[in-house]
């Protein structure tokens, strides 16, 4: 294992040898596992087994149907608010260290965010009835 320690010290492409090693092991593991299940596992294919499972309800038609754009709109808006929370977590952890400047920065961020929220409400993006 001495060569691995050596790799840490020197600033050469050899530095990245552990990364390559881990990549190889990760890919190798997946290949071995998939091959093993295919080769070793028994296969009994019946009609019922191959049918799509939809919570016990008999499947009806194709799933790829056009659906109302409103679902996408809500999904996108959810992502937006989700991102806001992502910023709040690190801020909550570093609340004391960041002090006043940090507070103003977050206030500005929330202010801009509020503008966006106001905009979607005014644009009636959250209204479901036409």
């Amino acid at each position, binding site marked *: 294992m001495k060569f691995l320690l050596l790799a840490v010290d020197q600033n050469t*492409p050899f530095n990245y040898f552990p990364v390559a090693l881990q990549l190889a092991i990760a890919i190798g593991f997946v290949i071995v596992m998939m091959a093993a299940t295919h080769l070793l596992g028994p296969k009994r294919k019946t009609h019922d087994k191959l049918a799509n499972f939809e919570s016990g309800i008999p499947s009806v038609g194709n799933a790829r149907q056009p659906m109302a754009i409103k679902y996408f709109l809500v999904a996108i808006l959810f992502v937006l608010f989700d991102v806001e929370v992502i910023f709040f977590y690190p801020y909550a952890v570093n609340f004391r260290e960041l002090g006043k400047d940090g507070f103003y920065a977050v206030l500005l961020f929330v202010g*801009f965010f509020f*503008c966006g929220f106001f*905009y979607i409400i*005014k*644009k009636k993006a959250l209204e479901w009835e036409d």
Partner: protein
Amino acid sequence: MKAIIATTILGIIMMFAGIMAKEKKPLTTLATILLVILLGVNIWDLTNTSSLAPESLFNNMLRIDRYALWFNTLMTGCTLLYVLLVGREIQKVGEHVAEYFALIFFILCGVYLLSCYNNLLILFIGIEIMSIPQYILAGSDKRNLKSSEASLKYFLMGAFTTGILLMGITLLYGATGSFNIVSFSFLQSDHLNTLALAGILFIMMAFSFKVSAAPMHMWTPDVYDGSPTAFTAYMATIVKAAAFFAFLRLFQVSFGSLSSHWTFVLAIITAATLLVGNLTAVFQQSVKRMLAYSSIAQAGFMLFAILAVNAVAWQGIIIYAVAYSIATIGIFTVLMKLKDYTYDGFNGLAKKEPLLAFVSTIFLFSLAGIPLTAGFMAKYYVLQALIQQGSLLWLVIFGLLMASISVYYYFRVIIAMYFKQGAAELNSPVSGTDKFMLVFTCFLVILLGIFPQLLLGNI
């Protein structure tokens, strides 16, 4: 600095104006007024910054120098000109006029970040802020299948290239341990760093995509052709110029000392861009598509400035950006007035609308690089930059050859207007304001062709 904040706030104001306004026309007026304010803020920034001491902001993330501020001012001026010329066409694109203008303000924010970044992360953010509004604008004609195709294609390709850009930034960070573009450690050390070189190559590919250089140009004709013409005019001009400015900044400031390693690759890209752009433009039937290919060809000339790595290159890119933007916005404005975008649609325009035909002739002269127009001086400066660099004379000669090919397809429009019989049908009547603005733009093209120093005096 003030301009970056101002453009964001003005964009938000524009967004909310859309909720209040009942009609479309006041929105265009409002956008014009806000752009004038933004131009004022830019000039205020410019007068407050001395040419000797560039200002560093946000822990050295932004480095604001006179070149960047002057470029921002010029690009804001071009945007104002664009809105004055094309404002009425923007109203016709769809329902959400205020949002279109707001997105243009946000694009300008990206442009400002790209002109003064000092950190690769800001470069990344700038490119994203500039690109994402464009994906929306490309698809703003929602009922049109071509427009949707353009938007989706642009988004997918753009997102993929962003990945390549990030990969390049990562490799550079791995090699040097820094995001700061002036403090890369390989600038000092003599030994070759393979990771850094790979990173430079990745970043070069990503930038080549953004400026639509061959072989990464495939998206350009489809996106430019599919998008509403009003927005094609913006994408092909100011956005492209800003991408070039960022390209030049990085490759001159950080990678300039390593130019012997990347010059040859970029020279081949440049030659391919000139060849593909010009030769394919010859075979187009639609003038809009021809202009898309011509924008690829013009990108080839702007790449000269990046290859040159000297002081003239900065002047060249500024003059080229403005000259190309003004002429292209002008010719797109004329194109939007016509019903039929093919060459035949231009037949006999000179008889019906002599002024329209005359101004488009001047714009096409400028794009082709005929003396006494801005396009000539632009080509002159970038060629001079490359000649001073010295080792790429074959590319200079090749560029001149390609410029002469470009004359063919630009003049085909002029021939159609003046010497062919036909009744060019107009989409909308040409109003007095339109005529005034077109003549003013035409005047600018000629003025810059005679006094190109006007664009350089302020640096």
